[in-house]
């Protein structure tokens, strides 16, 4: 029964997703064209004839509705070969989704740019996520169990450091200490395996801090509830109470946070990728907005929005699974 209710829930949510994504694409499409200046206006002036040729080549002279229609048609999924994804996140081969040529990188398509840069961001993000969970969960649980003791204050202060020291302070400081003075790691670059340590630590620490705070809050909420008292009264050991009974409910806020957080972490962090010179998607993301690379902006926005929506759906499903009080409506 639960399985069926879950499937119906997922199906309904997926249906609801379509108009949302449609609106996001449309809003972004017109928003970026509404902003003064275009992809080719910032560079030094070219003769008008050449400008016309460029505009014609990229269809920038077409009426806006036509550009919009063509774009929407091109990005529509028209094929289904998920096995193609083995070789990398190539959406064109797998689903026939074509995000068009980049306006700033000659002879490169947006699909290629995403395929090339996404793996670096994902691998960095995955390590950072592991760091965040490995540090944040124990810190948060410990702080909640030992509430208002010095251990709690220590754990809470450490996690507050992670929240208050932004990545662009923490990153350079780690480079300063471990890269330059101690010389353990390269200050920047993305070649050896050890190059992943400092950026992943920087990114992971920030997320670990949020995870720790949310875990502490969630655990405190749960530990005050009747079913925990029942479990204790029935003689369950403290370890069992914490890990078997409390953790399940205490993780709910963390799960809700992780949905959007994973989307953000996987699509890359501009700051981290700039500081450590990592060829990831996060940098493309920001530079495309500066250079008005319409197709690249749209491609990255669609990727990000889809990820967020998909992960929020996963979060909702996991939350019902963790919390027996919730039901799939």
């Amino acid at each position: 029964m639960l399985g069926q209710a879950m499937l119906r829930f997922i199906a309904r949510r997926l249906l609801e997703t379509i108009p949302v994504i449609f609106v996001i694409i449309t809003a972004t499409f017109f928003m970026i064209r509404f902003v003064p200046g275009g992809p080719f206006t910032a560079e030094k002036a070219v003769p008008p004839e050449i400008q016309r040729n460029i505009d014609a080549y990229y269809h920038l002279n077409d009426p806006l509705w036509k550009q919009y229609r063509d774009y929407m048609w091109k990005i529509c999924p028209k094929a289904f070969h998920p096995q193609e994804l083995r070789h990398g996140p190539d959406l064109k081969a797998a689903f026939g989704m074509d995000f068009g040529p980049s306006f700033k990188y000659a002879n490169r398509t947006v699909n290629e740019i995403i395929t090339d840069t996404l793996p670096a961001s994902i691998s960095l993000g995955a390590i950072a996520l592991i760091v965040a969970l490995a540090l944040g969960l124990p810190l948060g649980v410990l702080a909640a169990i030992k509430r208002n003791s010095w251990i709690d204050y220590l754990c809470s202060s450490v996690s507050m450091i992670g929240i208050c020291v932004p990545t662009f302070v923490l990153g350079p400081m780690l480079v300063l200490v471990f890269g330059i003075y101690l010389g353990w790691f390269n200050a920047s670059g993305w070649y050896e395996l050890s190059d992943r340590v400092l950026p992943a630590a920087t990114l992971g620490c920030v997320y670990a801090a949020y995870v720790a705070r949310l875990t502490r809050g969630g655990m405190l909420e749960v530990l005050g509830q009747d079913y925990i008292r029942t479990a204790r009264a029935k003689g369950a050991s403290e370890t069992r109470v914490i890990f078997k009974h409390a953790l399940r409910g205490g993780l709910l806020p963390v799960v809700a946070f992780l949905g959007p957080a994973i989307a953000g972490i996987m699509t890359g962090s501009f700051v981290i990728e700039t500081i450590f010179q990592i060829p990831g998607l996060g940098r493309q993301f920001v530079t495309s907005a500066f250079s008005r690379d319409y197709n690249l902006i749209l491609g990255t926005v669609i990727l990000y929005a889809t990820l967020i929506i998909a992960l929020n759906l996963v979060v909702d499903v996991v939350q019902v699974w963790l919390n027996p009080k919730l039901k799939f409506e």
Partner: protein
Amino acid sequence: MVSLSPKNLPAADLSADQLEQGHSLWQDAWHRLRKNKVAVIGACLLIVLGLSCALAPFFAQSYYENNLELTYAPPSADHWFGTDQLGRDLLARVLYGGRISIMVGLVASFVALVIGVSYGAIAGFFGGKTDMVMMRIVDILYALPFTIFVILLMVFLKDPMQAFDTWLGQHGMKQAQGVGKIILLFATIGAVEWLTMARIVRAQIMSVKRMEFIEAARSLGYGRSRIIFRHMVPNILGPVIVYTTLTIPSVMLLEAFLSFLGLGVDDPMSSWGKLIKDGSEKMEEYWWLLVFPGTLFSLTLFSLNFLGDGLRDALDVRSSKD
């Protein structure tokens, strides 16, 4: 439609209302807050930092005067934080930068507060279709990656603001130049940060809406805007205050991030984000350029967050039960 004109918001009545209803509540909260050591330390630190930034013109050295004989001087008795590439005193630059960063934090949070509370209150009060449409708009704005949104907004508003700056310069207000850029920062950050506030306020209004005193107000024939802004909004002040204190640090982080992108204030002005960005580029030889601004910035965020947490514990009705 609800009219938001000032005549519907009798300020004097509102505070009198609050005093009568909430006297003991606010006093209790104040008492609890004072017992929270970390929050008190945070508040004291904020006052010290805020005052030294505010009073910087009276004691600090010039933040823009170059001294090319003293470039990159390490910290010393004359220049406590050292000097930068133009021989400018870093302490003065940090204090003046703090003025901008703190001001952006406060004003942009206020902008977010006003938009968020009005939007959330209206959506929550009317419910039904209005609510659905308004909240879907919020959902869509949430799903847009805010970096792109912010960059586009800043690019879009750059020219009008520059025109405003030149206009100020032409009308004998040379001092005020650069103000346009700051207003731009306020507007952009405020426009991004109100979303969560709107959600919180809406949820609170929805729960207050069904309470008896609202029913009573309605049966007395009060208008909608009077009910929303005089009876509902005062009753959700607790969460709003707490969330606002926690918005300030996130706004300051956003300002620093924008400076990191090169979208912050222009030279010779400084802000903490800009100083940190410049410092991180030169830290290999001149560590003080990164360490001092970074530490002060983090300390401020620390204090704000601890104060916000303390306020939440002090004002939260749920925690007062145990």
